[in-house]
């Protein structure tokens, strides 16, 4: 059985089915089921690649190497836990009338479509299809962000749509430029868009074209990654969309964009044999880190705040990939994993907290620990984890990143340190009053499913304490792949 197809088709079929099911409860269950099946297939897929360098499937259309195998599993996993979380969450939203049954149907269907786009993007070997899948995922999430149909939600979705549409168009232009030079080497066909072939022949590609292409790709996919100054859509889209969507946006979609960017960076490095791409990424990473960290200090909306934290962490990864040493790449991959886990876990917690307090305004959220200790502690621990405190995995990756920075660009360690510190301060400035103290009068009890949160944090903890050998091997392989360039 071809697990590639199975992994991809399950969410697609699920999405179509869900578009037809009217009963929200049944739909929610089917949603969970679909995601579980997807996750199972993705695990089987990962299992098949275990012990091999890479596998190609279906005429080179699909491709799995150490770099994307864990991302596929991660995507399917976070996708699954998010559906589990969203079941009671969306039920509550339905009960309080923020959404109606039609929208719920749209939500479930689009969610699976988004999953499909994500998985397609991670598994495809064709940079054109990669673009298409990213666009697909974007379009699906645009509809998800506007789900509440409030003025703010519409405005946020519009902003998201226009800015990301623009960005992704630029990425397409970059892709065309790559095709422009690769078609001279690999012929005018699908081969010229096949990443593995491009990578193998990277040194034959025209460095000048690749340089220009990378500028467009950087701005294009960088918009999706949420890099400053193209990040403006991100806080609004996170803040106004339903919380499960914020969770997958932060936890998954940004990863896909960065994944794509890094894939292109490998090509560009192989072609130009300079650090140009790396330096650009480091520059974007550093600026984004500082701006995001500073911005954290003046926030009112809880989800917006955590979305700035996502920018901060994507910036860290961008910076790390840009550094271009094996240690840095290792750190970035690890960071990608733990950030997805922790950040989506935080959004789950935040979602429940916001429902309890009936607001996303941070000044109205108080005393979570008193009101519901699980959520209060969850938010506090999650924030500590994302801020880079051990024994969670974020600490480990930041430690490695920091070391790698000092190894290659010691003077950049200072702004890096500053950014991390300011970011941490910004988070705790707001999280502390929310979790501590006495809860306000209007707090109410809601159905809460904390299991996904615990699972996420538990995994992040595990990754901080002891990384399994196979994962570490993957990271190592991927890191050498990323760093190795065209070699």
């Amino acid at each position, binding site marked *: 059985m071809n697990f590639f197809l199975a992994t991809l088709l399950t969410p697609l079929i699920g999405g179509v089915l869900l578009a037809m099911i009217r009963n929200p409860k049944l739909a929610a269950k089917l949603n969970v089921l679909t995601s579980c099946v997807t996750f199972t297939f993705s695990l089987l897929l990962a299992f098949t690649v275990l012990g091999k360098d890479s596998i190609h499937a279906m005429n080179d259309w699909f491709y799995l190497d150490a770099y994307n195998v864990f991302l596929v599993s991660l995507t399917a996993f976070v996708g699954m836990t998010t559906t589990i979380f969203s079941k009671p969450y969306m039920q509550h939203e339905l009960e309080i009338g923020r959404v109606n049954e039609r929208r719920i149907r749209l939500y479930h269907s689009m969610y699976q479509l988004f999953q499909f786009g994500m998985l397609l993007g991670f598994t495809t070997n064709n940079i054109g299809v990669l673009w298409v899948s990213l666009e697909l995922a974007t379009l699906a999430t645009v509809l998800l962000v506007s789900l509440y149909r409030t003025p703010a939600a519409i405005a946020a979705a519009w902003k998201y749509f226009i800015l990301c549409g623009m960005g992704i168009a630029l990425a397409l232009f970059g892709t065309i430029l790559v095709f422009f030079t690769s078609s001279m080497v690999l012929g005018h066909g699908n081969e010229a868009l096949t990443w593995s072939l491009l990578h193998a022949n990277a040194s034959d590609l025209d460095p000048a074209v690749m340089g220009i292409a990378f500028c467009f790709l950087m*701005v294009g996919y960088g918009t999706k990654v949420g890099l400053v100054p193209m990040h403006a859509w991100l806080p609004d889209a996170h803040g106004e969309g339903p919380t499960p969507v914020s969770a997958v946006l932060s936890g998954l979609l940004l990863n896909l964009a960065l994944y794509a960017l890094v894939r292109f960076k490998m090509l560009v490095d192989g072609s130009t044999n300079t650090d140009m791409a790396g330096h650009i990424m480091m520059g974007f990473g550093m600026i984004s880190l500082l701006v995001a960290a500073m911005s954290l200090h003046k926030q009112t909306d809880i989800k917006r705040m955590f979305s700035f934290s996502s920018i901060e962490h994507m910036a860290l990864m961008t910076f790390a990939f840009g550094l271009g040493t094996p240690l840095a790449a290792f750190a970035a991959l690890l960071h990608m994993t733990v950030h997805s886990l922790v950040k989506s876990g935080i959004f789950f917690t935040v979602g429940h907290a916001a429902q309890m307090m009936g607001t996303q305004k941070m000044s109205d959220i108080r005393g979570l620990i008193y009101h519901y200790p699980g959520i209060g502690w969850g938010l506090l621990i999650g924030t500590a984890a994302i801020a880079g405190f051990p024994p969670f995995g974020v600490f*480990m990756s930041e430690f490695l990143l920091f070391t790698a920075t000092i190894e290659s660009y010691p003077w950049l*360690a200072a702004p890096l*340190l500053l950014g991390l*510190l300011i970011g941490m301060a910004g988070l705790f400035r707001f999280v*502390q009053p929310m979790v501590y*103290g*006495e809860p306000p009068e209007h707090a109410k009890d809601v159905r809460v499913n904390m299991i996904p949160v615990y699972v996420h944090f538990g995994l992040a903890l595990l990754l901080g304490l002891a990384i399994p050998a196979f994962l570490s091997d993957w990271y190592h392989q991927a890191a050498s792949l990323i760093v190795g360039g065209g070699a």
Partner: protein
Amino acid sequence: MMQSLALSVALLACGSVIMAAIVAPMLQHQQNIQRALLCGLLGLTGLLACAAGFSGLMNDGGNIILPLGLPWLPMHLRVDMLGAFFLLVIGVLVFPVAIYSYGYLKHEQRLTPLAIFLPLFVLGMMGVVLADDAFSFMIFWELMSVSSYFLVTHEHQYIENRKAGFIYLLMAHMAGLLIMGSFATIYASTGSFEFAAMRDAEIAPLWASVAFLLAGFGFGTKAGVVPMHGWLPDAHPVAPSNVSALMSGIMLKVAIFGFIRITWDLMGSGDFQWWWGALVLAAGSSSAISGVLMALQQHDLKRLLAYHSIENIGIILIALGLAMLLAEAEYPTLAALGLIAALYHTINHALFKGLLFMGAGAVLHSTGSRNMEAMGGLIHRMPWTAALFLVACISISALPPFNGFVSEWLIFQTALMAPQLDGTLLTAMVPFSAAMLALAGALAATCFVKVFGVVFLGHARSACAAEAKEVDVWMKLGMAIPALCCLLLGVLPALFIPLLDRVPYTLLGTSLLSTLASGSGSAGQTSTALSWLWLTPIGAAHASYSAPIILLGMLVLGGLVFWWLHPKGIVIRRSKMWSCGNPHTHARMQYNATSFSQPLRRIFWDVYQPEEHEHAERRQHKLLTTRVRYVVHVSDMAVKHLYQPIGRFTLWIAKALRHEHQRDIHAYLAYTFATILFLLAAFT
């Protein structure tokens, strides 16, 4: 991998504390069992850590590799002399604090968070001491910071506690990052995270200096060195008192340990540069003086004690700085003396500061207040607490025959025996630091006269003080153990110093006793058989101090005088106090904490810059004053002129950025447009 008794015992201690962290939270519904289990396991941990420390100091330590962490970077643990000594410091305070906690936590409603984070906190501290690679060090280090943050914010219903917790966590994180930077710098030169490799490697002087500075600022922040101390006076008072005792007593010492580990052990005294020691000395002197000056102006008991921690860290750093200067100038014996002095003060401070915080906790427990202005006369209500607290007061004031004096005496000896160093600046710094030490010591005595006098003596200033009750036997026992240790370490330093002497042996390759034995050996009339009686660090002719004889002499003489003068069988007459013929005074007419420190406030007016507000209510005529209100507030200069501006600046930028995030969509499109133009222009 080398197993040894010390290491096994240390691992057992870790196991016991992990057990506490896992099992105790599960017993949420049986508070008594939970408390007993928590305190029992913690006490056991303390004992085991003590045992491991002793055995590590006596024999060789061992090392072990645990399959945790990264696959290519497993967790290395090791007991060496330095680590063993600090294990001892940890154990010797954790044990009594555990006993104390059993009584202190009796009425604690929310025990479970404490049951999780208290053991983790202890685990973090022990782990730092045991760690043998940079990564494990950092893991344990941050574990210590985070868990203590949760302990600081334990009583989070008060806004001041949250604020203190925030600033604490922020500074701790900064410290962690700086330390990480230091390790990373060493790593960049060695290519390995393992301490063993770092020890062997050569580091270029520039990078060594960078690593030193990063480590200095990082550990200095955590240890509360001025001006990075801003978190300390806020965080220590708001934590539960048993936690404050541990934080002030050990956690700050673990920072000192880390500093010694990186500078002395990983880089080694061969890498020292002349200005390192000078910087440490300067930092130590300024901390010692500013700490005690600020302490004098406090009226919150625990806050006052917190400032004294800053002072004592300064004293330890003075000793360390002297040792670094001397080691750099190639006087290993004197450097060893300085190091021993620093370590001796470390364990001393752990003991008496732990005791002081426990005492403060007992007072808080009984009166419900930390405000000294509301206390008074507690010696009658809480005689045991008062007596034990007094022991700590005398110890911290560096008065014989208790332990504080011994370590300060050793530091003075180091400073005085220091030969002339290169350069006028250095030459002047050594005696100047000694002067600062003397000043700090004398001011500390002043401060503790104030503390003991205002809290325990005189009349009760409020109802809660008048109705205070003595604490239970557990708390008393918990306080009695460190008090006894203070006395023992004060009277029998000559027995303890040979044990300490092994630490400089591993770090410097030389030790005090070996030099003395191989040297002139002119121990004068003191034979080796009586060596426990005399403390003669360099030689009897240079300096000697015999605490046992002084104590004995004082006891005999005092006893004789008492026996001679004291009339037998006559009950002493009690009457109203005389008070210059005006016995009808109100309790509020006593000198209180604010008035006691008024002369110093006036003398150091320019340093304190106090804000005074005087307000008099008058009836019609200006002479008919009905009520006078005087408020004085001394704020921490560092907070006022360093922390707050930084905070304001950050907020200012954040505000500007927020405006930037509220533009309309055209602006963002324009940004993207400009970015792509810029990239194309710059990179093609």
